[in-house]
């Protein structure tokens, strides 16, 4: 039977080393299967976060040969026979153990976002064409791969100034909901820091749900912020009416 060469990061809180494992390959196997094989047959203490194994829950995010992806979707047959497959935890968040990172920062950010606020007394007649875009955003499985790959968070560690692509998607989903009545644009501009994004689209590239994060969420939010805060004509009218 063919064997795969896995090189898996083992250790706690960043201190650790890569260890090599030889795992028999089954047809259709994914990298998460290989990690489970190690867990069940070689070392039951190897830590990996996973739930559904069907790309629906977004738990098993990691970096395979340097590429951020879901382990449950990383097919082993994409690699050359005998190729070394390096598996390590996502880098942007604090390391816990082996392939597990502490992603709790994302949950703290989510709490800051003003929740869905329906217009009072709305009759809830809402047409499909008016929610298509919002439904695209709601496909998000919170794997945080976009957060992991975003250079504002990854390279510059500006978690103090930028909520990251995941929460731009959430904010866009709320702002574009036809029944929502809250205005989050001040938050988008200031606390969430949409201006930090310089549209490199790395987030869109890694999204396992194929959400067009940059084009459909971030850029429209940037445009709305510009309209709200920087449009000279609107500013003029606002100042005139304010003066009255």
């Amino acid at each position, binding site marked *: 039977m063919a064997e795969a060469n896995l090189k898996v990061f083992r250790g706690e809180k960043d201190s650790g080393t890569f260890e090599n494992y030889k795992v028999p390959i089954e047809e259709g196997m994914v990298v998460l299967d290989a990690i489970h094989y190690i867990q069940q047959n070689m070392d039951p203490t190897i830590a990996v976060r996973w739930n559904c194994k069907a790309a629906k829950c977004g*738990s098993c995010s990691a970096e395979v040969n340097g590429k951020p992806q879901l382990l449950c979707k990383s*097919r082993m047959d994409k690699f050359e026979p005998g190729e070394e497959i390096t598996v390590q935890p996502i880098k942007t968040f604090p390391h816990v153990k082996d392939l597990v990172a502490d992603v709790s920062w994302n949950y703290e950010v989510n709490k800051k976002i003003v929740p869905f606020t329906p217009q009072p007394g709305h009759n809830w007649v809402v047409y499909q064409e008016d929610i298509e875009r919002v439904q695209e955003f709601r496909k998000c499985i919170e794997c945080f791969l976009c957060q992991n790959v975003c250079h504002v968070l990854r390279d510059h560690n500006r978690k103090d100034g930028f909520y990251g692509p995941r929460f731009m998607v959430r904010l866009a989903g709320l702002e574009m909901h036809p029944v929502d009545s809250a205005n989050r644009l001040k938050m988008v501009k200031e606390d969430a820091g949409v201006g930090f994004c310089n549209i490199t689209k790395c987030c869109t590239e890694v999204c396992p749900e194929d959400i067009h994060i940059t084009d459909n969420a971030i850029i429209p939010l940037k445009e709305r912020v510009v309209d709200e805060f920087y449009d000279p004509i609107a500013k003029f009218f606002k100042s005139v009416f304010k003066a009255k």
Partner: protein
Amino acid sequence: MTNYETHEHDVLVIGAGGAGLRAAIEASAQGMNVGLVCKSLLGKAHTVMAEGGVAAALGNVDPEDNWEVHFQDTMNGGKMMNNWRMAQLHAQEAPDRVRELQEWGAVFDRTNKGQILQRAFGGHKYKRLCHVGDRTGLEMIRTLQDQGIHRGFAVYMECSITKLIKDGDKVSGAFGYYREDGRYVLFKAKAIVLATGGVGKAFTVTSNSWEYTADGQGLAYDAGADLIDMEFVQFHPTGMVWPPGVRGILVTEGVRGEGGILRNKDGYRFMRDYLPESTKDQFSANDAESERWVNAAIAGVKTKDKRPPELSTRDNVARAIYTEVKEGRGSPHGGVFLDISYQDAARVRKKLPSMYHQFKDLADVDITAGPMEVGPTMHYIMGGIRVDADSQMSRVPGLFAAGECSGGMHGANRLGGNSLSDLIVFGRLAGLGAAEYVKKLGAAPAVPQDQVDAALAEMEEPFQRGGSGSAKNPYDVQKKLNQIMSTYVGIFRNKEDLEIGIQKLQELKEDIKNVGTKGSKTYNPGWHMCRDLKNMMIASEAIALSALSREESRGAHSRTDFEQLNPELGKFNTAVSKDADGMKLEKTPCPVMPEDLKRLFAKKETTHNG
């Protein structure tokens, strides 16, 4: 002595899927100080995998629908074994709960009149499942999560509970550990809601995730609650069968709801042959009529044509597929073919996006171009912790249960879509019931130190046994458990197999006593498995004993040695509870439906399992 941290709450909810989140939201709304424990990260619970929809008689697509019809369908689907009061509350309250989700931000697919769109599903007379493509569970859990985080309750992520603490007969706390670093935690609580889901990890082929290790069933059983209807285990007819790594992963019933056709290796559409006599008149007479029904459903227009036979209840379809495969008419990888590729490709991708990706990414199959291979997979347990229908309290004062870990609502077979509505209806009722119990309780019950010490000592044992020598590898033991359950307590059962299975389970208990682990407590899955095995063993034994005791075929429980349904046996639930000598089994009378509801079931109960 090892340390542990302590938290105090009025109501502690264990489990953060749809039922747990809804319970926490409700208990908070009642002014309770609430803690919510999730075994995974918030928003990753098994609810996220629900696909097809949430059943509620809104009547947006079929205006004839109402709660009484939904109630009838649910009872008929459950072969009248359901707790009638739960089925009634469920059918009555589901529409309000769905509308509430919408008001909390859930974005359901719409009809062309701008209302929530509903689709057909097996066993539902009318188009009743509110849905978002095939990712309804994700929509539901995210909506509840994003509401919940603003409701002021504490969330304990990646935390497992290992023991319920009691003061006399009353529940008073829970002990557990954080998965992340293995530190111990004690929750003092006046009331506890269990919402821990199912037991799938006791079986080899299952649609369930790692979390489904029967935690709530095991904790409640140990605390003195009884488990009912445990023989009723639902095998979903359509799981993936290939490649091996994804065997068992769910293929939504929505595929058949949208017109998917089941065929065997000869291209024969077999499902009509397996329709029970008693329900044949509800289905199309031929393929032409099925096609007209599908076309009308796609166009969103009403039709007098009847639905395709693929939309029979899950128990029938699962048995049909199993039989086709067993008799040599299966597909290359041991399933049958499910085909939706005859429909417009763009529409299939729109209505079934995650199925499209699941097959494309994991199996290299384009479902818009050819058929899928599918076969039965262990999916759901109808049985569970016995609760009072209105308050969701078990027989242990202060201990409540909701969702899959509770029993009674679904009887002998659950209809698709009724689980998501179950979560929000009974999650809310459990939160409400727990709050009302706490308000009447007064002072907090005591948390006896000896119980806490014993719980802590139990968790230390696997390390004392270590990871080598005579200690058993927990994963090996789980594999054995899976083999026993899948071999002897599967879709078709008989006395001989069940007795062998029960004997083997008894032997395996010794192995479970000797599982060991090594390494640190930091995120140590082997250690976690050591404890999870005990709960899985309780559920497995309960399933096997209950299955042996029910000498008839009813709903999801199929006995090859008792192929008929026996109306006399339908009057009793099977109940197991903990006794000094082990597991005790009783037959307890089913709650009797009042006359005003009985009139809805004019048709005589059939003796055929249909």
